[in-house]
């Protein structure tokens, strides 16, 4: 394996791709409309696939190509198409209701990235530089995905937040040497299952309440008080 250090092509490219994933997370947060949100997610998945492929090349780990292919095929193409189809079928493409304003969300996001860097960099002084940087990027992506889940009202954007969170996990997985493929595959399958379940849920919620706002769900519980 060629040595990765600051200034070498392998390091810079990996770092750039990781940073792009993070930037696209901010892109997700900043979009109001559902269509662009799905597109931003697709782009993030494609960049993630590129990052995985680059790691496969650098680490001479051919199994990471498979990870890249899964990321590209399932998350970059199949899921966005399916999500677009759902949006079309439910005719909800007009607007996304944000619970928090865009600006406070972005400010919170920046704070979370700072927090992730502060947490990861001192704990991992023994690891390689790239692993440390990538871990902080990945943790940022995870936190931003969580932020997306709580800052949006509709179920579909919450699902996209969840999927973007999972992207962060994969980013962390590929940047560490020798991560077994089994883990990634199982994560991908898990997400797929979750996706299907959520898809079923969308239609159930829609059929029940004529809206995708999850807050409606709580009124079921409140009936039992």
């Amino acid at each position, binding site marked *: 394996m060629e040595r990765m250090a600051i200034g070498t092509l392998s390091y810079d490219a990996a770092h750039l791709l990781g940073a792009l994933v993070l930037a696209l997370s901010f892109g997700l947060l900043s979009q109001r409309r559902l269509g662009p949100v799905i597109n931003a997610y697709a782009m993030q998945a494609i960049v993630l696939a590129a990052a995985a492929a680059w790691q496969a090349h650098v680490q001479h780990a051919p199994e990471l190509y498979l990870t890249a292919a899964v990321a590209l095929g399932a998350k970059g193409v199949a899921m966005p198409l399916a999500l677009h189809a759902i949006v079309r079928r439910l005719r909800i493409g007009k607007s996304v209701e944000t*619970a928090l304003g865009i600006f406070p969300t972005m400010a919170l996001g920046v704070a979370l990235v700072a927090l992730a860097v502060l947490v990861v960099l001192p704990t991992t002084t023994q690891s390689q530089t790239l692993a440390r940087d990538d871990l902080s990027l990945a943790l940022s992506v995870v*936190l931003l995905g969580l932020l997306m889940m709580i800052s949006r009202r509709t179920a579909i954007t919450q699902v996209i937040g969840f999927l973007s969170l999972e992207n962060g996990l994969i980013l962390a997985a590929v940047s560490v040497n020798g991560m077994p493929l089994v883990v990634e595959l199982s994560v991908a399958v898990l997400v797929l299952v979750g996706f299907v379940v959520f898809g079923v849920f969308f239609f159930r919620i829609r059929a029940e309440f004529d809206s995708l706002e999850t807050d409606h769900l709580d009124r079921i519980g*409140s009936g039992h008080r």
Partner: protein
Amino acid sequence: MTDLVLPWLGLVMLGLCGTAAMAAVSGDRAAGLGSLVACGAGALAALLHLLAGAPEARLAVPLGLAGRSGLLAIDGVSSLFLLLVMTIGVAASAASLDRHGPPSATAPAFPVFLAGMALTLLAGDGVTLVLGFEAMSLASFILVATDHREETVRKAALLYLGIAGLGAVCLVAALGLMGETGVGFDAIRAHPPRGVRAVAVLVLVLIGAGSKAGLAPLHVWLPPAHAAAPGHVSALMSGAMTKVALYVIVRVLFDLAGAGQPGWFGVPLIAMGLAGAVIGALRANMETDIKAVLACSTVENVGLIAIGLGLAFAARAADLPSLAGLALGAALLHAMGHGVFKGMLFLGAGSILHGAGSRLMERLGGLIRPMPYTACAMLLGAACLAGLPPSAGFAGEWLLFQSVLSGIRLGGLGVQIAICVLAGGMALATALAASAAVRLVGVALLGRPRTPRAAAATESGPPLRWAVILLGLLSLGMGLVPSLVLGLAEPALQHLSQGGMAQRAGLLTLSPHLDGPGYLPLGVALLLGFGVAVIAAVLRARAVAGHRTGPAWDCGFGAPPPWLPNGDPATQYAGGSFAQPLRRALGVALLDADETVVMPPPDDVAPARFAEHSVDPADRLLFAPAGRLRAVISGLADRMTFLTVRQSLAVLFAALVLFLVVVAVLEQA
């Protein structure tokens, strides 16, 4: 022989556990007899160990965490307290043989209680100590709940259990902070906690063991629990268990935390002690249940002992070994004396409860005639309670006062003023205790029986009588020759403070300073005896022969019915009326006391009703706000149940972010 003492004591504890098993099968008598024999053997071993100069010994036992052996250890401190616990154990077991009525299901807990106390005193590592302490807590909770069919008993037992739980949480944390789990005390002594960690240990031990000892403000469980427990159990709880808790404080703060701790560590002990002494003594004047009176006086005496301990800690840190030895010696002497005489008083109270059918002062009176043994014991105990020379109570309190007054050497003007305030507070507390003792004897034992049941009182059976006589003789001996107790405590004093009392406690005298004047208990006793004899002789010589009974002042009540020619006994001064001046003078400020008189309307013939009400300041300032806080927290937790999906996620997210922030901050530090 010294190698044998720990195996011997281990066998004693095993014997107590075996007794518990036996008692589960065959009932109260087995528990009493087995405990009597085991405690006798234990007291003998502790006494011999102390007489041999208290050589230290260790013994690994299969007890405690899996994969590790527990450690038993004995030295002068544990041996001294063990002697006290086992002696009171002998008396309490004997007294339990006199128990009448239906067999109680809680009898097996009695030997377990004794074994738990012994294990706490003999623990050589933190885990063993916690095991013993908690066995003691749980067994005593079970014993308090003996008469669980009464609502008040259940409430008292639950309050006790709650405070014991709080204590357990704090004690486990304190011992965890001292060192790695399962490390023996030797390793902790080699690397005692420092700085913030030591402060945390101090706070946790004061809550953990202080709550059991009855240090203010965690003393609120004592009066109800002691009143609820059977007599021999409250004798053991008040005489022995509070001292075991004080032993834990001494062991952790004086021994394990090392001599390098700052002197202000003694200040919280002194402050808690003073608060407990004043509040306990004042409440002892207000309670109308004789066992609650005794329990409040226990709070007072534990407070006085804690003052001595705190002063000894400060003096040791200020490098005044002679003062430290004096204060610690005074605290230990008073702890031993109080253990014995309070055990005796509680046994007497149990005897009154059984013989006269009530614990309430309003239902007693005139017991000195039908219950001479019990009354003698109560008189002797009340003399100790009041600190009359030459009783055991006087010796300890006198030495405590001497050490406090010598404490002016500790610092500059500020410290000296604080010492003066302290001495004044202690004087107030002991004076109040004297008043409580007078009230106890005067109302319960003297006068005329207030109820037919009290008039038909009977003396207790021989076992209880012998138990009381044993403790009474011990208490007399400790009062007349306190140096013997200090001699037994000498190894402990040397171990804890480097400055013993050996040169200052002769066989007959007791002096606070090497070349100063001292207290000659036997001389005082002779002088007092001579004075009393002269007065008695003069009175006898000048008295008119024979005696007559006349009506007593009855506060202006209406004429008594014809079958009560000497007035209605119910119009005698009772506990509540005796307490009224103090209640109005001090109770309003300290206990928030108020009195209400409800007068009937002018044309109504119903009697006017008088009601008085007082609240312990710890209840008002600590436990009531804690209860409100608990309600607020549980209300918040209740609202968590009804959060929306997004709010639940937000709570999780906030928790995660908080965790990461804490990690980040800790890393920067």
